[in-house]
């Protein structure tokens, strides 16, 4: 388990459970996306199934786990956009049978909140009293959308976001980027590896500064700039959510500076002069209005409103706020 970044306390609890033979039959791992919940779950499963109960990596069970061929290890993932009742029904007879290697069976359900209502209900009885030696691990970033009857049957293990300092240190090593860049990337990614290492890296590292510069240059008197920026953003259709997040984050920085927060709380630390200048020019209600404009745009986009119109509208509101 040493290869996992962070989550030391959670790992300690899980290992202690295996050691003292107090492994519950159902766990719910919850915490933000992309911080390593599934990784911890897989390693927990490996240790649970391991012949010497410590994830030796040498026994037959461990090598089967490493090769993803373990007969007692099942993973359920969303089929399309949801985990369907047929998947749960297919799983149930598997879990009733005795384990192949004799140590027990493990079922890992990823993105458990995506279970359909029927699927979740079908799981209830199994989750409450599975056959002896069965371990079911639910993983969810939005545990509040699970049925309360599901939550009540599981032992919860909370995973926290990685502190950005720790994430930055690892990013610096993994991506061979400068310390300053790593710091910004870690802050923007909000403690999530998936975000930091994902496909939007380029956006966060290279395009961010330019976007924010042009955003802060908008003025109520010249609409040409506004429409040009909208045009430019329209081209970035696939990453528009992330771009809106960046805008949010920038306005939040302004708010923080206005209320005298320390620099290291800021996310766009490399743009400090711009942030300071802007925060002097704008009042708090103005920044609030701008944030509201972004929030509204996000709401419209989630309802399939025309992208171009939404962007025009949002930028005009930001310029005039």
């Amino acid at each position, binding site marked *: 388990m040493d290869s996992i970044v962070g989550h030391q*306390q959670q790992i300690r*609890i899980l290992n*202690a*459970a295996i050691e003292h*033979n*107090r*492994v*519950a*039959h*159902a766990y719910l791992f919850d915490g933000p996306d992309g911080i390593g919940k599934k990784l911890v779950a897989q390693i927990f499963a490996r240790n649970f199934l391991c012949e010497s109960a410590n994830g030796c990596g040498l026994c037959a069970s461990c090598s089967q786990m490493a090769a993803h061929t373990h007969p007692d290890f099942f993973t359920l993932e969303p089929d399309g956009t949801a985990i369907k*009742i047929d998947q*749960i*029904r297919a799983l*149930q007879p598997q879990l009733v049978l005795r384990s192949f290697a004799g140590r*027990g069976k493990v079922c890992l359900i990823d993105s458990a909140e995506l279970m359909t209502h*029927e699927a979740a*209900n*079908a*799981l*209830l*009885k*199994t989750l*409450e*009293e599975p056959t*002896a*030696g069965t371990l079911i691990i639910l993983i969810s970033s*939005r545990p*509040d*959308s699970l049925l*309360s*009857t599901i*939550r*009540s*049957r*599981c*032992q*919860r*293990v*909370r995973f*926290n*976001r990685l*502190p950005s300092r720790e994430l930055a240190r690892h990013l610096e090593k993994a991506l061979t980027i400068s310390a300053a860049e790593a710091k910004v990337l870690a802050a923007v990614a*909000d403690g999530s590896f998936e975000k930091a290492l994902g496909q939007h890296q380029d956006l966060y590292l290279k395009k961010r500064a330019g976007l924010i510069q042009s955003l802060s240059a908008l003025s109520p008197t010249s609409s040409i700039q506004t429409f040009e920026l909208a045009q430019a953003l329209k081209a970035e259709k696939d990453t528009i*959510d992330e771009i809106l*997040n960046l805008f*949010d*984050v920038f306005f*939040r920085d302004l*708010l*923080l500076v206005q*209320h*005298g*927060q320390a620099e290291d*709380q800021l996310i766009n630390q490399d743009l400090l002069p711009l942030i300071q200048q802007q925060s002097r020019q704008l009042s*708090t*209600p103005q920044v*609030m209005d701008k*944030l509201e404009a972004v929030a509204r745009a996000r709401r419209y986009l989630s309802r399939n409103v025309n992208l171009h119109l939404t962007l025009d509208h949002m930028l005009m509101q930001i310029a005039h706020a």
Partner: protein
Amino acid sequence: MSYLVLARKWRPQLFDDLVGQEHVSQTLKNAITTDRVHHAFLFTGARGVGKTSAARIFAKALNCQQGVTTTPCGTCSSCVEITSGQGIDVLEIDGASHNGVDDIRELRDAVRYLPSQGRYKIIIIDEVHMLSNSAFNALLKTLEEPPAHVKFIFATTEPHKIPVTILSRCQRFDFRKIGIAAVQARLRYIAGEEEITISDIGLAAIARHGGGSMRDALSAFDQVIACCGNEVADEPVQQILGQVSSQLLLDTLAAIVERDPPKLLRLVAQIDDLGHSFRQFCHQLVALVRGLVILKVIAQPGELLDVSEGELAELRRLAEPRPLDEFQRILAFLLKTEAELATSSFSRLTMEVALVKLATLPTGIDVATLIQRLERLEKKLLARVDYSAPAAVAPPVVSEGHGAAPAAVSTSHGADLPPEPPPLPEEPEEKKPDAQPAEEQSAGSWAGLVAFVRNRQRPRISSLLEQASLLTLELPLLRIAMPAKFFGLADSEMQQNLQGLAAEYFSVPVTIEMIKGAHGEAQPPSLHEERERQETDRQRKLRENALEHPLVKSALEIFGGTVEKVTPIDKGFV
């Protein structure tokens, strides 16, 4: 033997073990002792309050080899089989995965056979709300009159999803949420049996975390034990349960009340560093603001508030300086934020923005104060009409509290119309409650009505009215003659609109009669005609005045010309 979680290990095995459901266990026991056991039961209630356990205990009680009893022995083969879920006569069915009509058909076939060992064949269908509609219907006849050896027990958390036809065939038992004290007592008992040392404060925190569900509480207890081992200290409990410390919450609340955004932002950073979920934080904050609201309403909240003495004193101090309204506003805002946090992609930002907004909101004024102010203003206005010039503007006032039609307040909207008798100033209605509205209804009121209609942005109706002539105006009757060429335009819709507007203007219901005016008949002139006449009068006067002007006279003399046309330069000037 693999480990059993506490909730399973300590599943109640006797009616007396069922905590907090005495009303259910007593009824079931009485049914057994008096030999009046129904054939179908429905157990409903929130998660983890003992529905499935009660169903199993009841099954054991009915099938125990010691005879039908309120205290199943737990040692006979029947009891043991039911406890381990292997009995042949007790079928425990997962209603959610076997929810089709075919599953029910199979079941119907199975219940026809007599039980193999026990007295009864007992069918327990758990999560019964997930049965399909046709499955429910397939069950109806069997459920109404099952064979004498069959008992049905349904358990569900969602009774509203069950068809009424099923509900009416069952005896229904509603399981209550379990009180915190009862949960805590049970936890204490289990802790003793499991040889775990934990203080009452820690147990209370766990019990509260369960929210009335025994299984939730036991799952949390398991989690705490998994983390701390057999010696549980107080501090880690709150941390493991993910609860924000009450001091942080009180600080946040104080910063909101004292309007201190920088402090709020620092607190948010602190909470983030501690790794709390902002949703949980917001949730607890809402609970605390609820406390403030309660304190504002009830001096001695007693059991309504579940807080320690120190916290209560602090809450009282915070509640003191602000009105109830403000706390309700904070509460509403935080509730909205809590919902937003569920979908937010960057919860820290959402929380920060929400708190800064709360701390910078302008203080609100409650509606009652606003209405009082408005009433004062109204009185002042009415009083001014008394003394000021007749032209003073007073819009029609509809004051509340006067059931009778208030007298119409004359208006000077007609001021831009040709000269007319100035409207009489209206006495404040309080002084003249019996004033007959009719006495002010001179011709001026007709012009006033037309002006009122025009001011209401109804140009079409008002221009039609200008062409019409007034025949009689004896409220509530209003007779109007409409020239033949416009009569077609005055359709029923227009009449209806006019009726509404007139009722509003005169403040009494008005009946409007519209007749077609023919040419040549003697009719009072319409407003339009009158204005035209006055206009020509004015033209004539203007011409006379101009011709008499010494400058014009001498010009005529010098040049020997004639006056062709007189045009006013500025209408308002002459």
